[in-house]
């Protein structure tokens, strides 16, 4: 058993890497996308600049908003912070606070965060935000279901709902990785990740109002609160992406021990480059789906996850 100090170091490294490095990956993604599109693009540190700038600015709040509008961003960020303790986003074995909840708990926390975000943005009373919320809600009933099913599926494959056990089980043997149910569930979760982080083919990020899904929620926020929410969504993207990488797509190569933890940060960086590359390729090859087709997209991912569940239960 590792000593308490080692555990503490590992914890600090995982959480700070998740919180501090997450904007970096967004920056790299934007830069690479710009490069592929033939633009020079902003610096890869641009998300940091944005956050710092926004944190310094004053907050404007509409008259009819309640306290929820002001405090929800902090709570949402706190939830993401909590999740970064729970799942293997950098370090491959349990750290402090990990035993608080299991995989399903993680999924529920994600749902809680998105629910809070929805409810607080409606508080602003803006018509456009209301439109955005109804839009998000008409998709989210699929995506949340898929998220939970995916975590169920993983739990059933290994017989426990601890993500760390899944990670170990997958790295034991290649045949575990190539199991049919795992492959299906990976595809399903990848599709979900594309939706949750607003990538093509579901959403074209940017300021075009017609195709906005997630950004429409932040429309009435400004200043510090906006900065926190943006940072929160970078963290969310990092968390989901790292789960995708570590538990589903590419579970190998992670080191243990305090030094290993430092090394893991670098390894995660490389893995993320891979994921960014994949999503850039998708971004440049696929066209955006029509808005109501996003449901179909999510339905497919939902069905794949359920199908994987059936295979796990019936064939094993």
């Amino acid at each position, binding site marked *: 058993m590792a000593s308490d100090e080692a555990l503490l170091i590992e914890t600090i490294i995982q959480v700070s890497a998740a919180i501090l490095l997450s904007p970096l990956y967004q920056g790299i993604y934007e830069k690479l996308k710009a490069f592929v599109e033939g633009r020079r693009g902003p610096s890869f540190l641009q998300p940091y600049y944005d956050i710092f700038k926004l944190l310094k600015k004053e907050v404007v709040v509409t008259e009819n908003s309640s306290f929820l509008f002001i405090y929800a961003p902090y709570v949402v960020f706190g939830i993401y912070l909590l999740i970064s303790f729970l799942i293997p986003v950098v370090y491959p074995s349990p750290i402090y606070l990990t035993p608080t909840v299991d995989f399903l708990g993680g999924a529920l926390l994600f749902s809680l965060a998105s629910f809070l975000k929805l409810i607080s943005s409606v508080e602003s009373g803006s018509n456009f935000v209301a439109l955005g919320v109804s839009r998000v809600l008409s998709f989210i009933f699929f995506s949340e279901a898929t998220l939970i099913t995916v975590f169920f599926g993983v739990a059933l494959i290994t017989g426990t709902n601890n993500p760390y056990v899944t990670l170990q089980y997958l790295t034991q043997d290649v045949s575990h990785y190539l199991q049919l149910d795992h492959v299906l569930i990976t595809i399903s979760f990848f599709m979900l990740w594309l939706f949750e982080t607003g990538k093509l083919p579901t959403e074209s990020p940017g300021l075009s109002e017609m195709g906005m899904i997630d950004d429409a929620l932040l429309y009435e926020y400004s200043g510090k609160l906006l900065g926190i929410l943006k940072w929160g969504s970078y963290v969310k993207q990092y968390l989901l992406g790292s789960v995708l990488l570590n538990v589903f797509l590419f579970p190998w190569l992670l080191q243990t021990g305090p030094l290993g933890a430092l090394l893991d940060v670098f390894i995660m960086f490389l893995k993320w480059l891979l994921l960014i590359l994949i999503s850039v390729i998708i971004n440049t090859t696929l066209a955006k789906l029509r808005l109501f087709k996003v449901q*179909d997209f999510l*339905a497919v991912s939902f069905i794949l996850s359920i199908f994987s569940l*059936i295979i796990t239960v019936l064939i094993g």
Partner: protein
Amino acid sequence: MVNTQLLELISASIIVSALYIQGQAYFKPAIYAQAIQSALISVLAFYLGFALSLIDYVILGIIIVVLRSFIITYFLFRGLKAKPGIRESTRGVASELVVNLAFFFLAVFILYYFVLGRIGLTTEAGTATLTIFSFILFFQGLFLIVTRRSTVAQIIGFIEEENSIVLFGVLTVPIPFLIEVSIFLDVLGLVVITSLLTLQKLEHTRLEELMG
């Protein structure tokens, strides 16, 4: 020895092809998907034939690929003659898929726990549990017939049902040739008639006179 994982993979792709057909509004890709589905079943038969060194399976595979993937596909296209790029107006792929899911999810679990789990099928290739795929495919076909109104989609649903039985046969016990071939020819006959009907009538709706 038979590699069960490979069988699983092929069977699962068969189901995925069925899901694809369910989500497809255009006829042309659906017909191609049907051909691929049959080809996948024949691949399964070939594989079992070589793994168990049984010539029966190999010949069965050849028959399937010729009759199902080529001839039936040809006749289906003939029925669509001069109507390329034609599609059926579907009522929401997402909802259809989810209802489909609920339907076959329930049906398969009921079948598994109340029927298959009790009768104890055993097969040479150890593929008894895999027969569940054939039932899933069967319900897919049934569901396709129920949800669609066009002749083409409905006949593809019927072919899916037939495919599910062939799959069931391949996974449990291959029945004698003479019968197998006649079954295929029967289905072919139905498809030919369908292609004649498709030329006349492409969509099916409720009719006042055929009620009650």
